[in-house]
């Protein structure tokens, strides 16, 4: 980026600052906003940027947050979205008020997880980094571009969290849930109602596009000069041509939502409801199994600080790494079947023992010495869930977890007992 654009951006930012102060009142901590140049230059990561060709025949890239809206809300929102998508660069400064990609995530503040449909997703790179480095939560990158379906092995944002990871993060008070679709539309509604603001945004955006064009024209002239064709320079300022405007590659957009987010964070009832909804939608497993899996997950994380990934490849529920999965091979294949109460079977023992030893791991079977007092699965669950969500078994499980939260119960999990099984060839 040239100074020209940066300066322009700075101007935008100051405008935005004033607007936000008007809109959000004293709650917004504008002082936290970083130097605008830096914020603007931290552009897209290469995973989700469609390459624009040399002539600037690119497309205006949509922001991730908007894609989400489109996904959830269908036709109604499309119109709003189209108007909205005209102005992504404008929103960057507001996004950076809460999260600054250079400063990283503030460890004191809780991290929002967006619940969209039956998934828990994260769009913010800083949050993902923070969780990976400080909490050993790896998740699964799941974003792919619709136009490049062969990219199935190298995926980008958003990061999908498994139900066990979500439970762990909530249980330990690291994160909180946000209803992704609703939060985004609420934000859009605020924005769209304000006609003046939209007009202003549109002007700022068109200025930005003009700057882009000027920049490209300058590059073009420089290139020609280098080639010694300075006399052939023509003014190529074609207003009809689209330009490619780079945007930030995370949910910095949602930073402007922080009033909404705070509402979600502080309301435990909403949290419980969201989680019980997620529990119902995310997996086919019954609640007892989910609870059992979570106990084992929590046990391994609390006692051994392992990184835990899904273990289908190795015939277990999880595979457990002693550190970051990029640095270590996994040591354990974790089977969450409760050997105290379930029959594992001779064939399975020889199978998993052999499999684990063959890949230089240990097969871990975990059991609960005393089974949880309340069986969570309920035959009438469906009916309850629809009529009265707070009475459903999922909600009971969630309440149970929230009641224990932060009381150090997890650290003293003496009921989980694990054995490892190894295959030894006799003779």
């Amino acid at each position, binding site marked *: 980026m040239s100074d020209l654009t940066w300066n322009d951006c700075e101007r935008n930012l100051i405008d935005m600052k004033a607007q936000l102060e008007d809109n959000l009142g004293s709650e917004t901590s504008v002082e936290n906003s970083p130097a605008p140049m830096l914020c603007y230059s931290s552009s897209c990561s290469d995973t989700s940027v469609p390459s624009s060709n040399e002539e600037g025949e690119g497309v205006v890239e949509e922001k991730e947050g908007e894609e989400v809206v489109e996904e959830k809300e269908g036709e109604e929102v499309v119109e709003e979205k189209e108007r909205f998508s005209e102005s992504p660069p404008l929103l960057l400064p507001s996004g950076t008020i809460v999260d600054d990609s250079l400063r990283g995530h503030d460890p004191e503040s809780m991290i929002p997880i967006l619940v969209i449909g039956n998934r828990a997703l994260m769009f913010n790179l800083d949050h993902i980094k923070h969780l990976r480095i400080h909490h050993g939560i790896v998740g699964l990158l799941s974003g792919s571009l619709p136009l490049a379906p062969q990219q199935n092995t190298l995926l980008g944002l958003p990061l999908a969290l498994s139900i066990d990871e979500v439970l762990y993060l909530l249980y330990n008070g690291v994160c909180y849930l946000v209803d992704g679709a609703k939060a985004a539309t609420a934000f859009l509604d605020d924005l769209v109602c304000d006609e003046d603001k939209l007009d202003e945004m549109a002007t700022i955006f068109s200025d930005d596009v003009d700057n882009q064009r000027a920049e490209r024209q300058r590059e073009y002239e420089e290139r020609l000069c280098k080639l010694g064709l300075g006399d052939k320079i023509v003014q190529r300022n074609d207003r009809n041509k689209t330009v490619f405007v780079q945007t930030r590659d995370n949910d910095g957009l949602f930073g402007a939502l922080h009033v909404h987010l705070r509402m979600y964070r502080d309301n435990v009832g909403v949290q419980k409801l969201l989680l019980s909804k997620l529990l119902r939608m995310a997996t086919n497993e019954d609640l007892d199994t989910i609870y059992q899996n979570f106990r084992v997950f929590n046990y391994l994380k609390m006692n051994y600080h392992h990184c835990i990934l899904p273990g*289908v490849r190795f*015939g277990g529920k999880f595979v457990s790494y002693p550190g970051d999965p990029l640095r270590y091979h996994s040591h354990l294949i974790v089977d969450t079947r409760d050997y105290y109460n379930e029959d594992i079977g001779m*064939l399975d023992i020889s*199978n*998993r023992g*052999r499999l684990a030893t*063959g890949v230089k791991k240990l097969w871990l079977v975990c059991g609960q010495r005393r089974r949880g007092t309340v069986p969570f699965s309920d035959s009438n669950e469906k009916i309850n869930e629809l009529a009265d969500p707070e009475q459903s078994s999922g909600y009971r499980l969630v309440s149970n977890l929230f009641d224990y939260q932060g009381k150090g119960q997890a650290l003293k999990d003496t009921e989980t007992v694990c054995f490892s099984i190894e295959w030894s060839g006799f*003779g």
Partner: protein
Amino acid sequence: MSTKNSRESLNKFTKPLPIEIIQLPPVYPGNPISWLIATCSFIGQLIVKQSRKITVLYNQDEFCFKVTDKEDMDYLWKSGFYGKGSLSRSEPTWQTRAQKRILGVEKTETTSEEIVRYRRQLRNDYKQKRNKMLALERQYKLQGDSEKLKQLEVVRQKLSEQRDMISHSRPPERKDIEPQELRPEDRELIIDSKHIKNIEYMELTACEVLFLLYMGAIKVDSPDTGKQFTTIQLLRYLVNMFGAVEADNMFLIQFAVYFHYKSLGWCVKSGLKFSSDFVLYQRGPPFHHAAFAVTILKNSSINALKNWTHFGSIFRVVSAVKKTMVLCYIDTPTSNQLVDLWKTLDDNDNEGLINLVNMYSIREIIYKRWTPNRTRL
């Protein structure tokens, strides 16, 4: 296994079943003496055949069928590869090995355990050499020494040849075997300078016992009456051991599958080692490795189908030992049908077993892992 040895095996293992067949000398209608000779031969062979029946001891507490006589064990092994030596990998060879180890007796035969140990040792040597080579290669690459890298290429060639040879190699025959140091418990085993007590027995699986009894090759005493089991009596006894008389009885299903493959001429052994129900040998353990591992799945029971993780992990183990995984779907009759037939079974009519097995139908599916990424051309 080399050609020479497989030819040896060919002569050694000629019979698929431990049954003697009465062979009559030629009978000429016009020559009464030939009739006489034939009759004598028939009666003689009949007596031999009867006395040849192998006694299987049944231990009720351990639920274990044992053959203790060394000759019987060898006979069962050589004619159809039944049973497993309790102190050996499969063929009961403990006595031979113990004689070599304790007394230093010269034996021409090489047991499979010795071959396995020898090959494992070779593989370890190979791995050490390869690691050394790789270390050298890394070093030369860092130094940029292309001359020495070329030399290493020759070494690599040799090593890979050596590796390919391992699976065919046999331990060298040593003429002068020094008896190894004796353990205190060894002294109790010695009879004289050439012989040793045989403490190994051969264990037969329940399926094998029922099959062999049906074939008339063995005799088993009932623990309750003390008399010999008839086939149907043994069937009743075993089915009761495995649970109630119903179509889903695990023993009935296992036996139906065992009998199915046995009647198609496969050598069927237990597949517990490979986390399957059975493994199938084309001819027998000395000739080839087992090519197929059979997992039984019941159509009638919902619980039998666990999940894909389960099948995936069985496949990983089975494919690691280069076998093909066969899912054997078995259709059971309704419980009423089975109980009706069960009531009509006659103690002395062996064909009842066949009628029973015929009620089950079997379909096989081969399970393979398909990786779209790798198999695309």
